């Protein structure tokens, strides 16, 4: 049993390697064709738009990236201090999510790390 199980569980590390490589290289090749700064640009421009209206503390900006086969997500979590509409006085947060992939329509609901009382801005690529 244990021998069979170990034989069975060992089968399949090569397919995993193949799938991981295919996803990674799809992204790295796209990066090689000049898209490498797309995320950086989005990050800068989104920050600039928000900074036009409120003071943004650069240290309070969190960026998360998850590169997938069909869909990639970029989360930019910006803590916005003292919004006037926010009567509680607690910091608000805005989040932008970028779906960059073959099927952008498959973008999942945004905002896993977003403060729910604010509506996140969704940016599709």
């Amino acid at each position, binding site marked *: 049993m244990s021998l069979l199980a170990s034989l069975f569980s*060992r*089968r*399949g*590390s*090569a*397919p995993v*390697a*193949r799938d*991981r*490589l*295919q996803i*990674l*290289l799809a992204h*790295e*090749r796209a990066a*090689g064709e000049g898209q490498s700064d797309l995320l950086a640009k989005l990050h800068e421009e989104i920050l600039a738009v928000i900074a036009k209206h409120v003071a943004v503390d650069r240290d309070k900006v969190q960026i998360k990236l998850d590169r997938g086969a069909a869909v990639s997500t970029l989360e930019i979590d910006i803590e916005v201090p003292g919004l006037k509409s926010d009567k509680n006085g607690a910091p608000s947060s805005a989040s932008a999510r970028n779906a960059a992939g073959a099927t952008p329509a498959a973008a999942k609901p945004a905002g896993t790390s977003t403060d729910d009382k604010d509506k996140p801005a969704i940016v599709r690529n």
Partner: protein
Amino acid sequence: MFGPNFPEPGPFPGQNGGKRRMAKVLVVTSGKGGVGKTTSTAAIGAALAQSGKNVVVVDFDVGLRNLDLVMGAERRVVFDLINVVQGDAKLSQALIRDKRVETLSILPASQTRDKDALTPDGVERVIGELRDKFDWIVCDSPAGIEKGAQLAMHHADEAVVVTNPEVSSVRDSDRIIGMLDSTTMRAKKGEKIAKHLLLTRYDPARAARGEMLRTEDVLEILSIPLIGIIPESEEVLRASNLGSPVTLSNPESAPARAYFDAVRRLQGETLEMQVPSDKKGLFGKLFKRRVA
């Protein structure tokens, strides 16, 4: 070029009075280190020479030269590539003729000097001189994607991308293929550079069990034509222990046969792809033809 104090080069076999021959510059590259670039350079260079071509193998790995050791010429190095690039020695003084195959020469790399001593202009001049003397100029690239690797591939007409069936090697090969298509002289002139995949340290049995990336997997991911599959073999280490390309130390061995086949494909022959095996029994027969 070097002034009157230097005699004309000795009678190297490829020499033909300065008339341009159809020399080919082949770079053996990989990105990742330790995948078998130097071993493959030695074996491919020797196999080409054994087929009657005039061949020079050039070590571009400045600071970490090893091609001389693998070729068994380490005790005969006087001048090196950088001496020639900087004009301190004539090309003919730096070339070491192989003692086993008359048509095979090696141009060693420097062991101590600054990497920046290898200038693009100097390399261009040396490659030009080598083109006049040899049919094949096989360049052993250093690992990495920095200047040394770029210089090694810059003048290449063809490239052998050495890849192990392992994720980091495949990823690095992908980077190198991208560089071959963008930074080389041919790429900049809008010409194609012929790229060939050489899969090394391949274990057909492990691939069949799903423990190792299969040839098809690597080919699908990298999408460049396959020139050979070199099986994992103790003969490769034995050859480097002896200071001999495996095609010379044991021409009948599985890796040597795989290199001979690869070299025939390099010269335009079409051969059925198989992984040669040293294993006698059923096992070897079973896996002999299980490839792409």
